């Protein structure tokens, strides 16, 4: 059974602006935040997975986005080195929690920016990693050294889709759904070279962070607002669970950002 790490949104809010979605002028509606997060928690709870909760910390509003805690493979956890100071304080809390829960912590060099599962997703045995806005490409090489796997580094070119998990979601049958325009031409080609059966998400659905989805077997938990994608996935035998995510979209996050796999892959 897959294990997921979530963090309750007790201290969540728009307190700074580090991506084009964030605006302190448009803060999150606290009751709605609680309701939407609970919606995700409850939906995931009905699926084939076990949920762990990391305690939230004051003054770290984005801790709720556990996907950026790091990358877990087997019993090893590679903590993130956040690019923005605002989020750097999250790293020690996540690392301590993971260590307390029996994971081996493997730190990257301090000068390598890396934002965990947000920028590193396995498609089959290949680790697809995004770079430029948040993670450095050199961190990918370090991760490849640690894990001994093939890492495909792809450049992200649209600041709205600043992490790879905002525009790319691998599927268990070998394919993926993605928003190609978020990648440069070489990145698009590299992804096409390594994954077949790609489902392109329309721009008007991609902006609802439709690719920011949690895939558990044949179940896909994704933000509301992508009827075409849901229809395509349903046709392919997946069961989609669209959820309202408006309050988290205000910070540039949705279902997948709120979830980290422990581990994402067994080895």
């Amino acid at each position: 059974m897959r294990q997921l790490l979530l963090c309750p949104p007790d201290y969540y809010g728009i307190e700074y602006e580090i991506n084009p979605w964030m605006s302190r002028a448009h803060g999150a509606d606290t009751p709605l935040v609680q309701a939407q997060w609970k919606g995700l928690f409850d939906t995931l709870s009905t699926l084939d997975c076990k949920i762990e909760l990391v305690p939230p910390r004051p003054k770290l509003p984005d801790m709720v986005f556990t996907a950026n805690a790091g990358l877990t493979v087997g019993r090893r956890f590679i903590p993130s080195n956040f690019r923005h100071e605002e989020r750097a304080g999250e790293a020690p809390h996540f690392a301590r929690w993971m260590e307390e829960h029996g994971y081996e912590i493997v730190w990257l060099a301090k000068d390598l920016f890396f934002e965990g599962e947000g920028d590193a997703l396995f498609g089959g045995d290949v680790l697809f990693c995004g770079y430029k806005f948040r993670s450095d490409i050199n961190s990918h090489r370090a991760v490849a050294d640690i894990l001994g796997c093939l890492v495909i580094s792809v450049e992200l070119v649209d600041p709205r889709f600043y992490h790879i998990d905002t525009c790319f979601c691998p599927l268990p049958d070998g394919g993926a759904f993605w928003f190609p325009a978020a990648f440069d031409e070489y990145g698009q080609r590299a992804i096409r070279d390594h994954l077949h059966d790609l489902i392109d998400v329309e721009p008007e659905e991609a902006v609802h962070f439709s690719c920011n989805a949690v895939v558990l077997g044949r179940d896909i938990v994704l933000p509301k607002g992508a009827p075409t994608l849901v229809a395509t996935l349903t046709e392919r035998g997946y069961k989609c669970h669209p959820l309202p995510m408006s309050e988290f979209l205000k910070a540039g996050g949705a279902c997948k950002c709120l979830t980290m796999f422990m581990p994402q892959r067994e080895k």
Partner: protein
Amino acid sequence: MFSETVVLRGHIIDSLILPKVLDQILTQGGDFKIGEIKIGQNRVDQSYARIEVSAPTHEALDDIVLRLRQHGAEIIEKADVQLAPAPADGVYPKDFYVTTNQQTLITLDGAEIEVQPALMDCAVVVDRAGRRATARKFHEVRRGMEIVIGHQGIKVIPVQRSTSRTDVFEFMSTNISLEKPKSGVIREMATELKRARESGGKILVVAGPAVVHSGAVPHLEKLIEWGYVDLLFGGNAIALHDIENALYGTSLGINLERGSLAERGHENQMRAINVIREAGSISRAVETGVLKSGLMAACVRHGVEFVLAGSIRDDGPLPEVIIDTLEAQEAMREKIAGLTTALMMGTMLHSMAVANLLPATVKTLCVDVNPAAVSKLTERGSFQSLGLVSDLEPFLRELTGVLAR
């Protein structure tokens, strides 16, 4: 060209990072050479590429490298040049680096500096504070100046020869064209002169007295009138024979029209010197109407600057002739800044002296009736020189004929 060496590591083949980096270098106006490449054997093996990136300016190179760093390129630190102080005035330190006439860059504190000017047979004097590297002759060196020694941290960038047969300089290189079609070479030369004139280039003519003896002055005057000459270098003789011819119709006493010895013709040369000395200078003689025709008068009228360098056998000399050889060299070096094309005719002495001062980028045509003079000149290491064995009058007649068409 300025360059940096960068290294790419990782899954650069599968991620298409290597082709992306190479494409970016080219689209940003740079160039690359792959120094080393190791491609991973297995799927998970990482690859390695060492790439020398070059660009025409420092700024362009910095821009390219900045972008490449985003894609994971790491810069390899370069070794600095080694320096030693000059032990005395006019003396280089032992093991000093001898310059060529090619573009040369030295690495100082990790960054490249271009040696100015590209002058052969000098040492490189480094001014650390001003971040300047200058090619200096023996007599310009003062005790304590920091001078490059050995070969570390020095990069010489030869003028690239094109493989396409579009430019006579590029494919004929330094061969003397005794057995090559003269008309073709002269046509190419005319094209080059036109190109230089139209693109704002600077053209130098180095000429010996044979221009006058062979009766080629009217043709050279035409080149001056048409704006194909920006600078004239020569010795006392070319100016003197031209002036003698202008004043008395003889050159070294020979009547150029009839080819016979004029009566008391041997005196004409000395009288000509006296006329100019009396006027004060060649320029003054033209301004006051004493000297009305000929090559030197054409130069003065059309604002063509000239440098006349003296030698031990000179008669006179004429007032403008610089008799201190180092001073003459200095005057010529000052004037050749920005030179693109040089036409050297009928003087081994002055042509060799000037060729030693020219950067390799200057396109040079040497014309002499003596094959030995031509080969000596074209073998001086000037990469874009072309020799033509010909008498000067027919050469210049044909050249002006082509230019007139």
